[in-house]
């Protein structure tokens, strides 16, 4: 047995995930039934029973969403704590890259939360409509979520059982540092161009949200997410650490930096995913609620504000940029 599996937090994490998985299984059965047998205008007992079962599915999804959200934070926190056991790792970045399952796992976690958010939005409007118009879409979406969760579960098992505590992993400075002049930035941008694009995309995104341009919102959100990731890792992060060579998406979640990373990434992912949910809901189902746009604008602005203020504060304190 790997000594990773002895760690209390890993045990708690895996057990919680398994409980959620069992709940997913419980919810899967009625969902499949709904896909096959749902006839809203039927008066049969079966149909009434299905309508009740749908509530079980909804309750379970709500619960799983809330727990998964906290488990994501807990997961990052846990792998951060594991860096003691993995040689060479200074923070979560090293532990995540300890094997090939780590990064996909993290990606799947975010994806699942996003799809669940979509599901919950759909469910909300489904309940408020008079004939459960989205029930079938919801059920298919749930089955998709289930498949994603199965993959996540497999990745998780693979990840935690394949961390080799004798092999040295690279720490964040090796993973994200510039290696021999190779440009790590996407689309062949340089730093200044990327930062300009960062603010430009922010502006476009906000305008698109306010003016209700759905397609534009979708594209600009996704681009903004990508550019933001690189900007935070390679530019804003260095101001958080106050060290031009320290480039890491994970270290900022540590206590030394007042856990600011959780806020930074939380507001970014929250804002972008809510704006995407708004755009998708609008274009596929004709649901358009301004609260989604408002929250999204708020989150994205908070994100940009935090990033900017680190640079500004640094400049005012030291009189130079890094």
């Amino acid at each position, binding site marked *: 047995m790997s000594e990773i599996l002895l760690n209390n937090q890993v045990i708690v994490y895996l057990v919680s995930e398994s409980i959620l998985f069992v709940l997913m299984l419980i919810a899967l059965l009625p969902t499949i039934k709904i896909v096959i047998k749902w006839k809203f*205008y039927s*008066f049969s007992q079966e149909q009434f029973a299905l*309508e009740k079962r749908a509530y079980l599915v909804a309750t379970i999804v709500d619960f799983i969403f809330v727990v998964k959200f906290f488990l994501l934070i807990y997961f990052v926190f846990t792998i951060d704590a594991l860096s003691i056991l993995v040689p060479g790792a200074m923070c979560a970045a090293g532990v995540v890259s300890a094997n090939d399952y780590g990064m996909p796992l993290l990606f799947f976690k975010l994806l699942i939360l996003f799809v669940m958010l979509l599901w919950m939005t759909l469910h909300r409007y489904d*309940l*408020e*409509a*008079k*004939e*459960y118009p989205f029930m079938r879409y919801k059920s298919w979406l749930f089955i998709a979520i289930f498949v994603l969760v199965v993959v996540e579960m497999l990745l998780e098992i693979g990840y935690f059982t394949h961390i080799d505590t004798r092999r040295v992993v690279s720490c964040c400075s090796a993973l994200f540092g510039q290696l021999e002049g190779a440009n790590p930035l996407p689309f062949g941008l340089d730093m200044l161009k990327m930062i300009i694009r960062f603010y430009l995309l922010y502006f476009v995104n906000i305008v698109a949200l306010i003016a209700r341009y759905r397609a534009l919102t979708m594209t600009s959100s996704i681009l903004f997410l990508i550019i933001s990731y690189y900007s935070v890792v390679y530019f804003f992060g260095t101001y958080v650490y106050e060290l031009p060579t320290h480039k890491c998406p994970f270290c900022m979640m540590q206590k030394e930096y007042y856990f600011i990373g959780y806020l930074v990434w939380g507001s970014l992912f929250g804002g972008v995913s809510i704006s995407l949910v708004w755009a998708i809901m609008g274009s596929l189902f004709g649901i358009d609620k301004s609260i989604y746009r408002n929250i999204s604008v708020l989150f994205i602005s908070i994100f940009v504000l935090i990033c900017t203020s680190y640079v500004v504060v640094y400049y005012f304190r030291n009189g130079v940029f890094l």
Partner: protein
Amino acid sequence: MITIEALQRYFDGGDERFYALKDIDLHIGRGECVVLKGVSGSGKTTLLGIIGGLDKPSSGKVMVDGEPISKLPDLHLSNFRAQKIGIIFQHYNLMDHLTSRENILVPLIPVANDMHRVEEMTDAAMKLASISHKADMQTSRLSGGEKQRVAIARAVVSDPDIILCDEPTANLDRENSLKFIESIQMLHQLGKTVVIATHDPLFDDLPFKSRVVHLEDGRLV
């Protein structure tokens, strides 16, 4: 106000199908008072339940205020019950661990946003049912007549258009029954639509305008 067309309610038990209600067509106008009569097991309670959105028909159409309620999703049906329907149950159905006042405000909880408003409406309902003096007493310690009045107050607290009564006088003595009829008269005068399911002969001749409908083995006679 209430329109029922070709309503059926049956239960599938084994091979046989048991009909609780069969081919019911009924129209009840706004402000009308209708007494459903019939022996026990004739389907009065089931019909009442379907009108109030408590039970679902097996087929047919039930319209209240022009809206079909027979196939509403739960959220809407509950909303409908909360806003349009007030029910007085046969056994009063009070929550014994609560006081009268707390029992009365129960229907307001899911629809109201403000506690002050809830309290105002509760006070008004208690006044209407003249039970204000027992407001803070546990309902398990009330007498039958008082319980009945709490039940009335609860039925009217959200100011519904329709009041449904299920065997309201089954557990009351004659004196209290007469008092109950007085309160029904008052509600009728307030313009509520009242539907009473009962086999009590007292309701045969109400002191105000009413219509008596007979049910027998799930059919209107």
